[in-house]
């Protein structure tokens, strides 16, 4: 697979849902270099999902714009794919069919689809379930299918909205680790939205804290940690403490 990252430029983004509703966030400016894993942490309701939906092109900002490698995002595209909290698989399709579904929307030959699907299924380690009904998989396996379904598009940018919050601690930890290592290996950008500080420390190259009403970026932290990251490692714990402190400080302003 040949995926490359992209330079994300968020320029003075302001959003309100309707002219009458309050401003969700005000003039957010943020950049992310190619291949970076950016984590946005913030309390419930501060506008994280809204921001992610704008990045995905499914929602239009009121003001400002988002550029990927200099081109403005205006509508959804398989080049930037979003993964949700729930896997939302298509229950009438097998694992392989679910994974390949995005390719069948494009102009891919059957042979190419089979090749790419097989490759991605190996990547998320679901080989033994290719022909299974997705309803027979565990929550974690289903989320892996959703991940594969996004990766098969070879996106430059993967957007994740609390993607693992519905999973048990072990499954969550292994998926956090896998997504990070796959992203690093293939080189695409990820933007993750979460309120889980541990998730941020394990997954981020850089973490930003969003707070306030209207929301804004109030703090930034480079998570300069080597891989693989173990949450019991004192260095990881140190970053966790830093992030926790910043998060609490942000909550108090």
């Amino acid at each position: 697979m040949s995926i490359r990252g992209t330079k994300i430029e968020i320029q003075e983004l302001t959003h309100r849902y309707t002219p009458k509703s309050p401003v969700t966030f005000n003039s957010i400016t943020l950049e992310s270099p190619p291949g970076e894993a950016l984590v946005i942490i913030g309390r419930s309701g501060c506008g994280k999902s809204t921001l992610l939906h704008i990045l995905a092109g499914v929602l239009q900002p009121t003001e400002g714009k988002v550029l990927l490698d200099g081109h403005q995002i205006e509508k959804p595209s398989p080049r930037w794919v979003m993964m949700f909290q729930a896997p939302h698989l298509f229950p009438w399709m097998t694992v392989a069919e679910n994974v390949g579904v995005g390719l069948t929307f494009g102009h891919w030959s059957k042979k190419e689809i089979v090749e790419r699907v097989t490759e991605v299924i190996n990547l998320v380690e679901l080989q033994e379930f290719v022909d299974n009904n997705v309803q027979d998989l565990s929550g974690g396996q289903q989320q892996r299918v959703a991940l594969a379904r996004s990766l098969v598009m070879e996106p430059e940018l993967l957007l994740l909205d609390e993607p693992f919050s519905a999973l048990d601690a072990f499954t969550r930890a292994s998926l956090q680790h896998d997504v990070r290592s796959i992203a690093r290996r293939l080189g695409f950008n990820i933007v993750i939205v979460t309120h889980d500080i541990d998730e941020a420390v394990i997954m981020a190259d850089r973490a930003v804290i969003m707070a306030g009403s209207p929301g804004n970026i109030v703090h930034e932290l480079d998570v300069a940690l080597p891989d693989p990251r173990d949450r019991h490692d004192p260095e990881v714990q140190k970053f966790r403490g830093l992030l926790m402190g910043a998060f609490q400080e942000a909550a108090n302003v």
Partner: protein
Amino acid sequence: MVGLLRSPTVQQIAWALSGLSILMFLWWIFGNYIAQNPATASFATFGLIPTLEAFPLLIHEGKIQTAVVASSIRLGGGLGIAIAIGVPVGIMVGRSKRFRELSNSPFQLLRMVSPLAWTPLAVFVFTAWDSSIIFLIAMASVWPVIFSTAAGLSKVDPAWFKVARNLGATSMHMVTRIIIPAITFDVLSGIRLALGVAWIVLVPAEYLGVTSGLGYAIEDARETLSYNHLTAMVVTIGIIGYTLDTTLVMLIKRYSWHKGSDEG
């Protein structure tokens, strides 16, 4: 051999055959009983053996075939109209809250009218008997199609559209790749119910006016006192209805994606 007897399919078939044998046996006893009783002896040809004897003759004369063809055309016509109207209307009911609220009361009210109650109106509106019967069948069978289609649509997860759009699906893909596969199961279940109603309405509707079809054949046999022809037609109706229903059950199983549901 023992292994074969343990196979679930073989066992299922064995149970089905046993059930049918019991039915035939009861019929045979009943036939003997009315034959023995002087008061009912003239109806003895209702029995199992005379009925079975009637089949070769009726088939040889082509009576069964013509009746089946005539009835099938009406059934197919009525059901076809019911599906052609019911599926789109059901989709509207399922998708639009406004339309659902607007249509619910009138639909429930119309649905509760016995299909045969429309007969005088049908005869008045359609000059031909055939069209009247097709109208009655369509009127009876359109409701289950509408309601099942709407129910199927309500199970469509809006997030599927979000995901598909994100992966580059066009509006055409939304219909062909998401809505249709998602609701096929429910539409077929509705068609199965519709078929049941249509089949029930068909026979009494054919008692009226027309000179062909299974209902007519029964009425004709009654008038000519050939009771074994009558029962042979009744058995034919049963067999065809059962076959059609089984076919639909198989289709429903084929298109079912709801977990743990292997029947409609």
